[in-house]
């Protein structure tokens, strides 16, 4: 494309920055993302104005095609940050890319006014600019996806870090209700706090409830086995409760041998067994 037309586009962008900004903010305010109140009007204005300034700066040298060139570094980075933060506050992918795509119409309208007597220039400029915005929209989208993955990772981390309380339900009876994934680091900490509690509470029965554990693979099974073995060495018998039929079956298929340990389907059954072993009886009060 002719150099002159490219400089035309950058020229229009610079000259009409304020007009474009106002129209763009107005268009975005009508979009569902804003209507839902995910960001404030002030944020919208600031973010739009910052982006447009960076865009004007990036195209100033006449490059409207190669967004990997150094003059686009700043805008790429700022877009990526914006998408990541929008992903984390609940913007959908389309709401996030609309930030860029909503600019297209506005700019085309401005170009129409500028070049209404020169159709060729208008069409060319429109195509070049639409192309540029598409590229930037892709940057936005990619950053959005990364941002979502980040959110998922964080959520999982907090799941992993859920504290696991050891509860003393009765003299000599401890309950360890496991919830979430009992993988690696967390499993080790759980095991340590359980063994500690056995000593401090002088308990002889430990109920480990895995109702809230979504998957028991050989690693989790081996952690459970080791924990129960260690408890036994310290004089406490373990009862493993909350094994769903599906999980029991899967454990058997895996070839993990739980036969040395007592298991019960529900926490209730486990507690009843513990009471019985300690020769305790729960009865209804008379009267």
């Amino acid at each position, binding site marked *: 494309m002719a150099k002159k037309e490219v400089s035309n586009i950058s020229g229009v962008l610079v000259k009409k920055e304020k007009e474009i900004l106002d129209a763009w903010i107005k268009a975005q305010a009508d979009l569902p993302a804003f209507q839902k109140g995910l960001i404030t009007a002030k944020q919208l204005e600031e973010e739009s104005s910052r982006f447009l300034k960076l865009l004007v700066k990036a195209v100033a040298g006449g490059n409207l095609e190669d967004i990997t060139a150094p003059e686009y570094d700043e805008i790429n980075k700022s877009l990526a940050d914006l998408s990541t933060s929008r992903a984390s506050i609940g913007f959908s992918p389309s709401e996030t890319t609309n930030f860029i795509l909503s600019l297209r119409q506005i700019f085309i309208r401005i170009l129409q006014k500028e070049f209404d007597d020169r159709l060729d220039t208008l069409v060319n400029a429109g195509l070049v600019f639409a192309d540029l915005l598409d590229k930037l929209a892709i940057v936005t989208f990619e950053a959005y996806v990364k941002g979502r993955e980040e959110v998922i990772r964080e959520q999982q981390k907090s799941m992993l870090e859920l504290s696991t309380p050891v509860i003393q339900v009765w003299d000599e009876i401890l309950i360890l209700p496991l919830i979430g994934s009992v993988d690696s680091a967390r499993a080790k900490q759980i095991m340590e706090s359980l063994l500690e509690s056995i000593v401090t509470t002088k308990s002889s029965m430990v109920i480990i409830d895995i109702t809230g554990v979504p*998957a028991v693979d050989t690693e989790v099974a081996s952690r459970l086995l080791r924990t129960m073995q260690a408890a036994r060495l310290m004089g406490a018998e373990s009862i493993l409760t909350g094994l769903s039929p599906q999980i029991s079956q899967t454990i058997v298929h895996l070839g993990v041998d739980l036969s040395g340990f007592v298991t019960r389907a529900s926490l209730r059954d486990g507690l009843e067994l513990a009471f019985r072993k300690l020769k305790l009886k729960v009865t209804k009060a008379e009267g």
Partner: protein
Amino acid sequence: MKEVKETSIKSSEDVILARQVAREMAKKLGFGLADQTRITTAVSELSRNIYLYAGTGRVVIKAVSGDSGKGMEIVAEDNGPGIPDIEMVMQDGYSTSKGLGQGLPGTKRLVDEFEIKSKVGAGTIVTIKKWLR
């Protein structure tokens, strides 16, 4: 159905992620609770092996159809150290990491089709399939 989900395995959290992806897909394809659990557990074993023994790799989960109807295929792939003796690692109880050594033989029992290819110094690919019935 064209459904492919790829999870790259780089940390122990990715093992959880791969597992969740597998469960979601199994549910969506109409697998019952028992099979969902089997598939999830198999994916857990394979992705954990990647993390433990190869460091990094990927798990590709997809819906497939074949002579046996519809089903799910999982490919766990890494460019790690590879396995020198496949027969050995397919035996119950063999582990180089003080694990239970039941991950691979156990996974084989949980699924309908199991294939393992490995080359020392190049990596390992395990492909498993589970059919809807």
